[in-house]
């Protein structure tokens, strides 16, 4: 079955199967958008929690850490309840659109980026803030210094969030609905092929998903070529 899957994946790729390309492109842009939004807010929140005294600090830190364990089906369920016609935001008609998946994946990614950024800033050498301050750096300049010093860990935080979003199934299935050509992603397509009994095609879809994940990983790795030498 796995060999068949390889062969199928190859066939789907070289023939640029339109349904696969469609699902793959949708998976990529949904995850990228969700992670981009979550990174903007999550990195800021992580920085804030690590460097400033915030009301209910412990509560927030624990909340975000707990947030990493929230199952995607629960996020999907909550988003469904909100976006359903009977829900609070039903009038927006977002249910069964890709935008609903973006919102759900944003809440999946946010705790990951926040928690890992928070941890990364906390682990910085204490001389970094001291030195920055001594050299007379303003707040903006200090923030840039912290981010720069922790950039490997932050890049990994973003990559982790992307991996989670790109491979999640619960949210996409629940609020996207796996509608062919509208909200079908690589993971919901894989689930469908499995339900159909087309196991090799399911394996093929997953290979394509892994291939794209590899590309993204390499992209992020190459954007910080010197990262693994930071400490030496």
């Amino acid at each position, binding site marked *: 079955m796995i060999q068949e899957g390889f062969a199928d994946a190859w066939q789907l790729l070289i023939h640029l199967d339109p349904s696969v390309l469609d699902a793959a492109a949708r998976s990529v842009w949904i995850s990228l958008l969700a992670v981009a939004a979550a990174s903007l807010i999550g990195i800021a929140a992580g920085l804030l929690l690590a460097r400033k005294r915030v009301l209910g600090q412990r509560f927030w830190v624990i909340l975000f850490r707990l947030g990493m364990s929230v199952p995607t089906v629960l996020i999907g369920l909550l988003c469904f309840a909100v976006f359903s016609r009977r829900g609070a935001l039903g009038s927006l008609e977002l249910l069964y659109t890709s935008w609903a998946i973006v919102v759900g994946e944003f809440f999946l990614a946010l705790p990951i980026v926040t928690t890992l950024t928070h941890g990364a800033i*906390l682990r910085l050498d*204490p001389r970094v803030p001291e030195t920055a301050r001594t050299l007379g750096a303003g707040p903006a300049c200090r923030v840039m210094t912290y981010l720069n010093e922790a950039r490997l860990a932050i890049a990994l935080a973003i990559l982790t969030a992307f991996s989670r979003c790109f491979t999640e199934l619960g949210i996409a299935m629940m609020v996207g609905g*796996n509608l*062919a050509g509208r909200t079908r992603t690589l993971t919901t397509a894989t689930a469908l092929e499995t339900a*159909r009994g087309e196991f090799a095609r399911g394996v093929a879809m997953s290979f394509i998903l892994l291939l794209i994940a590899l590309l993204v990983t390499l992209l992020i790795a190459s954007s910080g070529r010197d990262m693994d030498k930071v400490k030496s």
Partner: protein
Amino acid sequence: MIGGNIHAMSHTFQIAWLMAGVIVGAGCQPDAASPRSRSGCRTRTDTNTDSESTASDSSVLRLASTTSTRDSGLCDVLLPMFEQLHNCRVDLIAVGTGKALRLAEAGDVDVILCHAKSAEEAFVAAGHGVRREPVMHNSFLIVGPADDPAAIQGIEPAEAIGKIGAGQHRFVSRGDDSGTHQREMELWDSVGGHPTWQDYIETGQGMGPTLIIADEMDAYLLVDMGTWLKRRDGLRLAELITEGQGLENPYAVTVVNPVKHPAIHDELAHAFADFLVSDQAQTVIADYRVNGTRLFHPDRLAQEQIE
């Protein structure tokens, strides 16, 4: 200072989490070794040599069935009866008909209970199955928005499908090769082919989720009676066509060919087929009701025996 505090705290937390994990893990252990585990069952059978049980040496029957029989609750009644009669255990794998047939073809299950007559007959003809017995039937129905923009209420199913296609009204399809999806395709075939238009939507999901999607999107839908009766409360969709040619929904049990797959427990599989067509099981099927409505009509009882 603050950073240091939190760092210390986070360390404490890490340890707490680890411990919680260990405790939870330990708590799960007894479950993993419950008497229902495969090895436990085997042992029971092996030592039970003087029993009159007709079960073969492997007392686990693997049944692939459609999700509708599981979701309707019928299997919860029938399977324990069979398990008691034959001193065995039935593992129910509830999947769409397409997948059930694939599992059977690969020899991963011993017997299937499905509702796609032509696909099952082809399965037997190809030598994958040895015996197919009609068990029961109910029907499909076409539901849709209450204002019925395609004006199909009460007309013939094929004509209705044609009108929905011609008017390009919103229609939600399972699109998952299930028995219901195959029936929908047969209806499309009867009006000249498979449709594609902007508002023909394939969900690729089971009947329950697809029904919810159709309800949220105000779309037409072919649905099996069992799922509809169970789920219709709280939905805005209306019953539009409940009878007519092409809406019958026959369930049959098919025994997988043991010659092709030596691991198949064919003795137990045949016993299961015998059981489903026996008066005992047929009466249970006839008496099974959800919210006062009969879900399945037995095929093997004389008409006067029903009711």
